[in-house]
């Protein structure tokens, strides 16, 4: 097959990627969109095999088999609660693949300086995506501490790494060679930089980091596309890059923080929030049942705690009982609830909650005062009214779901501990708030039992 034909097929593949992403605009068409995108990928790979100068066949078959089997097993086995860890690892493998493509491209001897620069870019972006993602995975899976690791000279060290990387890159471009010591230095510094970039980022900021690394893995593919003059890599890579940037931006807005603030400064607890005092009103499952039975409109507000307690199935069961009882049931989801964008939605969808019941913060807030009971399950900072009222609170200004304005609020909680931000939550002391202490799954199950009994 001629190069022209192969490039023509790439155009078709790009069109399929674009259609696929377009159909991801609605849950009703999304499955088809994913299939179209996969078809585009199949075409792109298939026509590339007709290129005369490719990897020897035995290597292609072996590598594809190993990678394909690993991917398939992971995709089947992974729990929905562990989706953030899996996406982090996939970001990493995308990054390391681009690093290696850039490196391999150095073996073409007639590279121009421009090509060498793009090769270095794909090595640097791919390398830092790889090491950063592995560290993000470590934090998410709690192999290591998920807290922000901050030390004094961090910024100076990072700046030195960056300067060193650029210097080595320039020295390499002046005398490019596959065994240049500067090449190894660039690879090593890129890996180190990825680690240093993710270290100071704490657990609750993880949604931002995985989105950003997602974006980098696309940009790395893009740079690799420049390195080998290949259109389809540039198109697909920049789509991924755009997706990651958009999600990063949404996450930052939802936390009312700038990207720079997330990336460089742990979670600053510089300000001391106004101490909240008052009386907490506990409630038993029996009483909770009586109130819920009389409710016309109930909204569940899940947070990461729901995933930890594995309470999503029993929550769905309660939701269905309430609907049978004549109440309108919604699930209000804050953009940064969970450990990655849209994580709660997937967990609830897995528990068979209908997707038209999943509502966004902007949709629920205007009508929250018509909600009879808001049930907060394992969420804390995203429903903390201090974000609205208390200028001294570390989360002041962050948009929240205004559950305190619902007629009654149930808060399911193990204890009175504060959320990740460490801020006190005045919600717990509200007049209309009732605390249902204990394991979320058991508490809800007790209410469900009352309904059935």
């Amino acid at each position, binding site marked *: 097959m001629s190069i022209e034909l192969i490039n023509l097929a790439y155009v078709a593949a790009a069109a399929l990627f674009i259609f696929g992403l377009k159909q991801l605009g*609605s849950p009703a068409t999304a499955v088809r969109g994913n299939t179209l995108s996969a078809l585009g990928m199949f075409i792109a790979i298939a026509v590339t095999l007709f290129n005369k100068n490719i990897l020897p066949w035995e290597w292609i078959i072996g590598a594809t088999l190993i990678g394909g089997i690993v991917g398939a097993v*992971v*995709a089947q086995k992974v729990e929905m609660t562990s989706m953030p860890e899996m996406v982090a690892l996939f970001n990493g493998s*995308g990054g390391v693949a681009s690093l290696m493509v850039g490196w391999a491209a150095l073996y073409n001897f007639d590279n121009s300086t421009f090509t060498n620069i793009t090769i270095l870019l794909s090595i640097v972006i791919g390398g830092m995506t790889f090491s950063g993602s592995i560290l993000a995975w470590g934090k998410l899976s709690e192999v290591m501490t998920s807290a922000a690791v901050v030390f004094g000279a961090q910024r100076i060290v990072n700046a030195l790494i960056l300067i060193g990387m650029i210097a080595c890159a320039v020295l390499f471009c002046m005398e490019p060679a596959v065994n240049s010591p500067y090449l190894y230095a660039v690879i090593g510094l890129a890996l180190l930089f990825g680690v240093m970039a993710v270290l100071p980022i704490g657990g609750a900021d993880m949604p931002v980091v995985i989105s950003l690394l997602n974006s980098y893995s696309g940009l790395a593919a893009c740079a690799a596309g420049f390195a080998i003059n290949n259109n389809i890599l540039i198109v*697909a890579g920049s789509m991924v890059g755009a997706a990651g940037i958009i999600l990063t931006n949404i996450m930052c807005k939802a936390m009312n923080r700038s990207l720079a603030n997330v990336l460089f400064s742990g979670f600053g607890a510089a300000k001391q929030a106004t101490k909240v005092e008052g009386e907490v009103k506990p409630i038993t499952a029996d009483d909770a049942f009586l109130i819920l039975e009389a409710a016309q409109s109930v909204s569940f507000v899940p947070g990461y705690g729901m995933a930890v307690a594995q309470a999503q199935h029993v929550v769905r069961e309660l939701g269905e009982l309430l609907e049978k009882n004549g109440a309108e049931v919604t699930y209000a989801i804050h953009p940064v609830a969970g450990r990655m964008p849209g*994580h709660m939605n997937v967990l609830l969808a897995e528990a068979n909650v209908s997707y038209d019941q999943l509502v966004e913060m902007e949709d629920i807030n205007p009508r929250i005062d018509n909600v009879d009971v808001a049930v907060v399950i394992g969420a804390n900072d995203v429903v903390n009214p201090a974000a609205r009222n208390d200028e001294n609170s570390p989360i002041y200004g962050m948009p929240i779901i205004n559950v305190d304005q619902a007629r009654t609020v149930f808060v399911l909680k193990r204890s009175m501990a504060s959320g990740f931000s460490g801020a006190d939550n005045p919600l717990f002391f509200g007049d209309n708030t009732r605390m249902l202490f204990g394991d979320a799954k058991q508490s809800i199950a007790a209410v469900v039992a009352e309904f059935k009994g």
Partner: protein
Amino acid sequence: MEAVFLALVLMLSIFLGFELISKVPATLHTPLMSGANAISGITIVGALIAAGDGNDPLSTYLGAAAVMFAAINVVGGYLVTNRMLSMFKKKDTDQPGGQA
């Protein structure tokens, strides 16, 4: 000229990507990310070509390793996205307590 042409492709696809992806609802953001993982597996095409003529064993090893990692993304990414998206269902109107 080649570089300018590639830059044009880059610019257009970034704009298009922003347009398309800003229309994806929040509910589908996790599948969007795993789908993006799959698409970034496009590096597999680069890996097949870059390792090229096999004039040096190291470039073959690098290419093969890159193919392996990218294949994880392609296969794993599309399968897990499909698995997730299949969970998003709308309940039939008259089916109280419908179990799927």
